[in-house]
């Protein structure tokens, strides 16, 4: 269901009856959506440089250790 459809449905519900709580139509869908929005917002920040640098250092350390062992 698109956001527009959800909004329209809420609007209709509000117009039909004020006792019916808006948003109660698709509670799980709404919670799932918010959950993903929250989570995706962090994911979209990408990978901080400190982790890329850390992996480079680990990689280098491993290569050096192997080079020493090989001698």
């Amino acid at each position: 269901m698109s956001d527009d459809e959800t909004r329209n449905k809420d609007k209709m519900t509000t117009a039909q009856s004020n006792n019916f709580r808006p948003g109660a139509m698709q509670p799980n869908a709404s919670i799932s959506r918010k959950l993903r929005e929250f989570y995706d917002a962090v994911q979209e920040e990408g990978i901080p440089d400190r982790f890329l640098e850390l992996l480079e250092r680990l990689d280098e350390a491993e290569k050096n250790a192997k080079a020493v062992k090989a001698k």
Partner: protein
Amino acid sequence: MTTKDEDVDRAFKRDLLASLPNLRAFAVSLTGRHDKADDLVQDTIMKAWANQGSFTAGTNMRAWLFTILRNEFYSQMRKRGREVQDTDGLFSERFSVHPEQYGRLDLQDFRKALDTLPDDQREAIILVGAAGFAYEEAATICGCAVGTIKSRVSRARSRLQEILGVSGESDFGPDPGDAAITSRAFGS
């Protein structure tokens, strides 16, 4: 070192990198703060790297990393004891929401609601509802039965629904623009 070992190493690093944004989002969900989450991710990378040998190539690296991070998080919590948390400033400070997102997403409210959940329910709903794991994978990560995960997810949903449904009631209503249209449409 043989070429095959090098390939395995490269694949390990590539898959680790690919999993990082998701792993980091999980860390933020657990700790509630970006700075602590990043420390936790760093510890996880170090552990994962040191234990490369115990990872079976071709199996689910994401689940393996999540398991390490989760274990690390709980063992650090046990060691330190739960620190006194500044519940008000916890997410508002670190979790910035762009103004244009605010009305639509209510992310801060949602984040606060999420934080009121018990740890086991929060991690269950995050793993299944946001991180993209199957119930079975989430059960493996948390070291519990599939049924336990299912019931935690279901309780977490009811709880969030209850909190957001009651405290955020007005947020679900039409925005001022919509209200004007609504009153025009139904006013006469």
